[in-house]
């Protein structure tokens, strides 16, 4: 690490904590290129998703993560084996970061067999070994994440669970209930509010009597972090993991970030804010541009190298797009799979009694295997 470069993050704000993460963070060349690449993949992937939606190739909802890339990339960088994440419906970036390919994400959006769950989840429901999903119900993931942390503590793992939610979801009573139990039982969980300024068309100020989300755990210590700075996010997360694994209980994070697109693709996203506001963020706070400037200036990478990464990323996403628009879909029998786990084949009524079938396959994995 001889060529590590040191950067300063914006000051963290601390709540009920005497010490916090370091504002002075170091970065090596390898990580610089990796973070840049990861953020670019997410950005491009989401653009591709947006286009697919406009071309009517995606059914249902489609919530893009553009603008928030530093949150997922920074937190992932501090995770180690066995750590887990759960978030809401805005989950494409996280699914990718936690092990799915771009193809698996985009194909899930278009409902193809190559999708993360073969088209049965869609935009809001993808999973990996360390990623407990996407969840379509605002707030539901808050206690779920605490439960995942409970399992870690139960098994005496040195792990923690990152439990994400938005500024809108921060008002859910489930958070209050989950933080209370997490604190009572010292669960290794970080409740992370990604404050992107809006819950659909409602500004944080109109939904939340206090917008200091890092303090909303009351007696649970909290940290405000610049969510547009991947290095600040990484350092804060590293610190939090240590804190949790020392048995000190839960933390609340507020990651200050921004959502470029509308809430979902059906929302133009311009009735409750000005185009200027979005442009201003893009110009002054963009997590990728900012990071790019920094690492070039610090000689961790050259403009040329980053351009090459951009090219590779474009290629990766383009290829994924191809599969996502050409791959097959599950056969109708898949309507009747994945009802129960490890249970004998069931008799399932269809839309009419005459459509009643005995399950051909118990789950999609079986179906895919036998249809290869």
């Amino acid at each position, binding site marked *: 690490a001889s060529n590590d470069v040191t950067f300063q993050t914006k000051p963290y704000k601390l709540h009920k904590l005497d010490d916090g993460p370091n504002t002075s963070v170091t970065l090596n060349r390898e990580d610089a290129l990796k973070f840049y690449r990861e953020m670019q993949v997410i950005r491009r992937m989401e653009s591709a998703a947006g286009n697919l939606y406009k071309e009517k*190739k*995606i*059914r*249902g*909802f489609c919530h893009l993560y553009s603008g928030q890339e530093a949150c997922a990339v920074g937190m992932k960088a501090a995770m180690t084996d066995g750590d887990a994440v759960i978030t809401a419906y805005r989950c494409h970036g996280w699914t990718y970061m936690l092990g799915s390919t771009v193809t698996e994400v985009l194909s899930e*959006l*278009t*409902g*193809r*067999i190559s*999708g993360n769950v*073969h*088209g*049965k*989840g*869609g*935009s*809001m*429901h993808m999973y990996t070994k360390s990623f407990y999903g996407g*969840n*379509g*119900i*605002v*707030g539901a993931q808050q206690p779920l994440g605490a439960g995942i942390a409970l399992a870690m503590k139960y098994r005496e793992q040195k792990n923690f669970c990152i439990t994400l939610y938005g500024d*809108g*979801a921060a*008002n*859910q*009573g489930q958070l209050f209930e989950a933080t209370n139990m997490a604190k009572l039982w010292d669960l290794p969980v970080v409740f992370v509010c990604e404050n992107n300024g809006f*819950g*659909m*068309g*409602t500004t944080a100020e*109109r*939904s*939340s009597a206090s917008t200091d989300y890092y303090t909303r755990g009351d007696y649970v210590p909290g940290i405000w972090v610049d969510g547009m700075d991947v290095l600040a996010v990484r350092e804060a997360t590293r610190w939090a993991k240590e804190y949790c694994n020392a048995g000190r209980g839960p933390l609340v994070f507020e990651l200050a970030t921004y959502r470029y697109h509308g809430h979902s693709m059906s929302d133009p996203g311009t*009735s*409750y804010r000005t185009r200027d506001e979005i442009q201003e963020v893009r110009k002054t706070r963009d997590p990728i541009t900012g990071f790019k400037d920094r690492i070039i200036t610090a000689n961790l990478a050259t403009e040329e190298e980053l351009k090459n990464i951009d090219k590779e990323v474009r290629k990766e996403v383009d290829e994924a797009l191809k599969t996502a628009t050409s791959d097959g*879909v*599950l056969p*109708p029998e*898949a*309507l*009747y799979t994945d*009802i129960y786990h490890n249970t004998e084949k*069931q*008799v*399932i*009524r*269809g*839309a*009419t*009694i*005459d*459509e*009643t079938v*005995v399950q051909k396959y118990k789950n999609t994995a079986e179906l895919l295997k036998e249809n290869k």
Partner: protein
Amino acid sequence: SNMTVRDAINQAMDEEIKRDERVYLLGEEVAQYDGAYKVSKGLWKKYGDKRIIDTPITEMGFAGIAVGSAMAGLRPICEFMTWNFSMQAIDQIINSAAKTYYMSAGRVNVPIVFRGPNGAAAGVAAQHSQDFSAWFAHCPGLKVLSPYSAEDAKGLMKSAIRDDNPVVFLENEILYGQSFPVSDEALGEDFLIPIGKAKIEREGDNVTIVSFSKGVELALDAAKKLESAGVSAEVINLRSLRPFDFESIRKSVHKTHRLVTVETGWPFCGIGSEIAAQVMESDVFDQLDAPLLRVTGRPSQQRPRRQGRQKEPQHQVNIADYLLDTIFATRFLSNYWTLAQRTSFTFHSFPSLSPNFF
């Protein structure tokens, strides 16, 4: 003239908010955003912050606040962005709203309308596709309405708002944008549709198809196809699931002697099940030339198809089979229309079947 269901609900709320100072609307995005599905479009501009209230995403809390304000004399319209999210608030709907009148021996009544889109939309997956008709209809103390057309929506919504009891108003996202002819009367400010009465949408002689909400569209479609096959179908639009107008079904089956129920919710303990039981327990039972058939959402664990079918008189078999083949095409998967319907009715309305077919 014509009107969409969206505009009909909007107009009904507009008129009632204007008419009665105590009526107000609250919910997520209902004010400045005009509603997630634009059902409350323009109301906030017109009536302002006091009457049209944007809430945080806290269903349990704002439903409770709405119920409390109703106990204290206001007449809230409480929107759930979709009924799926009402599960967070269902304790307030059932335990606080539906049960208080009875528990207080008639001392405290709760004039409130809970409303929002119900059931599956296209490809939004399991958490966003639930149909709550059977759950709410199961519970005493609630009135449960399920409009189909624009006229239904307008007249029932106005009756709901003027009703002195908790009303669950189950709309349908796919129907919002649909246009229906409306009478001049229905455009008026005093157009009320009585709660608890079904509507004969179409008269017929050979089979009664009972449905509600989006299912009525499927029933009417089936009836049209049956007509060209020489079968005359009567279509009943229930409108109200609680109180339940079994009498209209009874009369109809006395004429047609055959009965099919159509609903987009899960079959087990569904509305069709209840109709089957009421048929059994009434003289309608003796009127049936063929057993009742249910057309429902899928899937639900049940038993294999009945054995005895082939023994029935030929024309009955024809009707039943024809209904199945047209309404839910169990055999002809190549049919574009039917499979599109099919996917949006599944337990879990999942996206993967859509790109090819929708």
